[in-house]
């Protein structure tokens, strides 16, 4: 089974990359800052964040690249996963907030005396993990069920997903909603008893993220390689024809859509403790569009591509914003244009093309 999931060179590449990634926190912990092999904790945090983005891009590729459902609202799943985990992290602060209350600071501030119902039990880590999966999953399922049942397609679907994320953003922005308004959740102290700023906790989070990303990749790959994957592609290319040969596209779409939302939610949950803040701007339409861009730059419909795309776009962005703070938008914008013009299949597509050319020559 394994050998059929990827070609041999692809396996080799994945394993090498994963090993290199896994090495980063080790180098960070085991060498002193002055040592040439030392990797700064900034780098580790950065790469950890990118892996979360990569997972979101991967999830998006499953619905967009393979099923042709362009979501401009995946940010909402990412953020909901983040918020679900964030609730736990907030409660783990305990009485160390500025008001030294059992409630998070913003609740004290808004004169809340008890937790609202949707906060109940969130002090339990495993329950919050359940929420991480369930909240985006249920939202996606319900939203998707009605949308797919009504046969909403193409841009119409994209735009209502955008409307969804926008509506959620406004809702979470409201201070009265109970999620800390614009500031969201931040200033976390502990995660399952470990100090969140401790290097070892960070390394552990990083490694869990890496493992999750790999797992998600394999899962997605297995799905798209199955016959179900081919049905998904058929949904993308000619949904009506598919119905005439007896498939009900509704459930197929709903399956990947929900799965994708769940993966995205997990990515969000991993993101929050590493970045240290979750707030409604994660749900802004522009953020969701950026996810689409990661997938497109890497090469959609390839699974590996979006991961590469997430790393390269964010990597460049991080570098540009530090190195050319005045000019970086030109560079980034130009890059997007050039990628579409000269690499319509993204980075991975270009690589494949070059390989073909080399073989032909």
């Amino acid at each position: 089974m394994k050998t059929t999931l990827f070609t041999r060179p692809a396996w080799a590449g994945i394993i090498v990359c994963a090993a290199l990634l896994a090495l980063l926190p080790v180098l960070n912990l085991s060498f002193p800052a002055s040592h040439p092999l030392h990797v700064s904790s900034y780098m580790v945090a950065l790469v950890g964040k990118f892996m979360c983005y990569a997972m979101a891009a991967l999830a998006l590729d499953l619905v967009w690249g393979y099923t042709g459902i362009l979501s401009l609202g995946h940010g909402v799943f990412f953020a909901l996963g983040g918020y679900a985990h964030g609730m736990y992290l907030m409660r783990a602060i305990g009485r160390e907030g500025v008001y030294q209350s059992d409630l998070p600071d913003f609740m004290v501030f808004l004169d809340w005396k008890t937790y609202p119902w949707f906060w109940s039990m969130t002090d339990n880590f495993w329950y919050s993990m359940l929420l991480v999966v369930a909240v985006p999953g249920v939202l996606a399922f319900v939203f998707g069920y009605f949308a797919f049942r009504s046969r909403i397609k193409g841009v119409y679907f994209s735009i209502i997903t955008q409307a969804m994320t926008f509506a959620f953003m406004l809702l979470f922005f409201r201070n009265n909603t109970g999620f800390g308004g614009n500031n969201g959740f931040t200033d976390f102290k502990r995660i399952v008893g470990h100090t969140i700023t401790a290097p070892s906790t960070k390394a552990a989070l990083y490694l869990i993220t890496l493992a999750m990303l790999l797992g998600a990749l394999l899962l997605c790959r297995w799905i798209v390689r199955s016959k179900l994957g081919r049905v998904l592609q058929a949904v993308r290319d000619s949904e009506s024809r598919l119905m005439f040969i007896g498939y009900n596209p509704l459930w197929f779409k709903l399956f990947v859509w929900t799965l994708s939302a769940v993966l995205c939610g997990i990515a969000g949950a991993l993101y929050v403790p590493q970045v240290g803040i979750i707030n409604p701007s994660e749900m802004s339409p522009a953020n969701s569009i950026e996810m689409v861009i990661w997938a497109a730059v890497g090469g959609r419909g390839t699974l590996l591509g979006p991961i590469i795309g997430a790393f390269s776009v964010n990597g460049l962005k991080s570098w540009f914003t530090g190195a050319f703070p005045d000019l970086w938008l030109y560079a980034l914008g130009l890059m997007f244009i050039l990628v579409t013009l000269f690499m319509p299949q993204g980075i991975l597509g270009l690589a494949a093309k070059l390989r073909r050319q080399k073989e032909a020559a």
Partner: protein
Amino acid sequence: ADTIKVGILHSLSGTMAISETSLKDVALMTIEEINAKGGVMGKMLEPVIVDPASNWPLFAEKARQLVSQDKVAVVFGCWTSVSRKSVLPVFKELNSLLFYPVQYEGEELEKNVFYTGAAPNQQAIPATEYLMSKEGGGAKRFVLLGTDYVYPRTTNKILRAFLKSKGVKDSDIDEVYTPFGHSDYQTIVANIKKFSAGGKTAVISTINGDSNVPFYKELGNAGLKATDVPVVAFSVGEEELRGVDTKPLVGHLAAWNYFQSVKNPVNTAFIKQWKEYAVAKKLPNANTVVTNDPMEATYVGIHMWKQAVEKAKSTDTDKVIAAMGGQTFKAPSGYELTMDKTNHHLHKPVMIGEIKGDGQFSVVWKTKGPIRAQPWSPYIEGNEAKQKM
């Protein structure tokens, strides 16, 4: 190294670039000035600029980069509360220093942060008192109008408690919020008009950034003049007014700790320095640049940090923090500002200005001298114990 690196963390793109870009430029100007006078402890300051692009997690990432990668001694930056909240854990974790130059809602006090902008009692409360005074029009009813986020919410909460303590009934207070980027104020202005029929009304606006222009335009076109319903704003300064046709705004108010129109030698020099800097660096619209309160706060912050470093003879965070308390600086506002010994906030004068036709403010009221910040507002329940901070 023979330079000291300092970080500048202001959005140069995205929604906040409108406000933050000029803070970056002022910071650079100040650094240039310090370097021209021989630097700090004989070392030149080397600014490291990054663009967190109005993206809050990116603020945290960039802060980390500045401190742990670029090894800066101090960071000057942030504008919105959420950006500050987002970087706080980083500064705490890495024990580094942030100078925050903008007025804010209070309810915070971090060892690693120095707040050079106003706390609510240095801006909002005096402004409201003024509105209630005879000179300010003797307002009886209040519309608390803000963008829906933490600064307006907190400020309004404090103000509501304050107004209550002054005997204003709840029915005479109307609290209204709009989403970010809201641009259609027709309904709200109509409601203000309706509300004002019930007695002398003032609007206390905590509308953020971009939404101010459509609000004031609507207000002007609906025929509500400052003499009828004055609006006092806490986020509108000279810089914002550059982008507005000020004719319909004349007479509306703003409360700050500094106005460009303040007349004193330090300010004259400050304005001149800034104007010359803008022309020399060919900043866009260099011939119309203005100064404003957060710019002054940035300028003051950098200078005070320099003094503290020289006093501590080190850029070590803890030593600088210890040296900061009690630092004084003769600020463009015309006063000698003091860094509080305990609460990391500046003692600042409060001024209320009326908008003039040329986009400047005429100061119509000010405190006798600098007043001490109360980051923990006494008008918020549970803060009683913290008053001594």
